[in-house]
């Protein structure tokens, strides 16, 4: 979701520099992947997780050569602002004081998938699973925490700021969590591959990177 804001800002700058007009289609990665798979016209796919990109790549719908990972993100545990809970490690989530833990859908939504992977890696998933409330997306998870019906939630660091009624209680260390990356690539059926490549290139630039960083993303350096 934070991609929306940062991309909008980057595009405004970009459009001033070049003559190209950027048309966005914002949506859940899974939705976008489905749309591209069904032949919806698009030039660039900017996915929130690798799996969706892999899926399209396997179907031969994207230009492998242009695929790159520039952005990363961090998971955080959020709690309601008024909460006095102290969370120092993942195992604190098993605390009985936390009745419910809100996650984005752990099967379909990247944030949820990552959160589940993290907890599995910590071998806490079986203990936490009964408390998990899967919401449609990150916003749903935040809303659940806001309303205090969930004692805690796991979301992206970049999204934690969306709600003023939650605070970050714990930031998942990079080595504990799976690598969170945002791959982007040119769609094969693109009608203007050159312009697409140009914008992809710009997204990888220093200037764009600064914007992303300002929104809390981590810049990665693989390819």
């Amino acid at each position: 979701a934070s991609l929306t804001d940062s991309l909008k800002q980057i595009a405004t700058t970009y459009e001033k520099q070049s003559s190209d007009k950027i048309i966005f289609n914002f949506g859940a990665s899974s939705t976008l992947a489905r749309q591209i798979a069904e032949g919806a016209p698009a030039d660039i796919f900017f996915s929130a997780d690798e799996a969706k990109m892999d899926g399209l790549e396997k179907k031969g719908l994207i230009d492998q050569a242009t695929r790159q990972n520039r952005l990363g993100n961090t998971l955080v545990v959020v709690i309601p602002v008024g909460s006095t809970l102290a969370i120092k490690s993942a195992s604190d989530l098993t605390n009985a004081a936390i009745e419910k833990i809100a996650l984005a859908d752990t099967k379909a939504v990247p944030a949820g998938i990552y959160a589940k992977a993290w907890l599995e890696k910590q071998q806490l998933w079986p203990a936490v699973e009964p408390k998990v409330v899967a919401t449609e997306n990150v916003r749903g998870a935040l809303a659940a925490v806001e309303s205090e019906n969930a004692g805690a939630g796991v979301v992206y660091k970049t999204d934690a700021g969306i709600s003023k009624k939650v605070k970050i209680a714990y930031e998942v260390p990079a080595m504990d969590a799976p690598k969170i990356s945002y791959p982007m690539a040119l769609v094969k059926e693109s009608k203007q591959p050159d312009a697409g490549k140009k914008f992809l290139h710009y997204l990888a630039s220093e200037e764009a990177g600064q914007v992303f960083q300002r929104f809390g993303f981590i810049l990665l350096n693989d390819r």
Partner: protein
Amino acid sequence: MTAEEWQIVWFTAWVSALSTLAILPFGLALAWLLARRDWPGKSIVETLVALPMVMPPVATGLILLNIFGRRGAVGGFLHNTLNFDVIFTWRAVLLALGVMSFPLLVLFARVAFEEVNPRLEQVARTLGASRWRVFLTITLPLAARGIIAGTILAFARALGEFGATIMVAGNIPGKTSTLSLAIFQDVQIGDDSHAFRLLGVSVLLAFIAVWCSQFLLRRKKRTP
């Protein structure tokens, strides 16, 4: 079908039916007031009733969450005094389905009530029937066609409701997961064959509802 799927089907069927039943009395009462009485602010209420129809379901869900969450006015009160939670329980599913299908029922019933000839109600009263008896024995049966259609539609809407439900009830397998939610998840992760199987079940439920309504209507016709 797996046991898990059966559970979802059962849960969806009964929670949809229950939500429809639950809104029936309020829906009919409001529809009657809209159809037969003039009162200040009527058209405001009319629009308010239609709101869950007009707003994107997430927005409705968010508002419900604001009201019924522990921080919300109603939710907070229930939690603090009765230790009773709505959000993320099956009650939240009920709430979401009810709110989302309420406008359909009200508007259908309203039109149905408006079509009832008031002369019949008047004459029923001269035969010694109280306002209440007239409503039950004249108005309601004569409006039955529209009310049954509205009820079926409300039920269908409940079967298909997704956006508001997931906001207030989450998608907790075995607890709040409905067919709609399960299908959504399947579609998202690309498990189309499973999605279509569940879709088939939804459609079957809808068929059953439509057939029941036609059976009711046909019996109504034959009775006299």
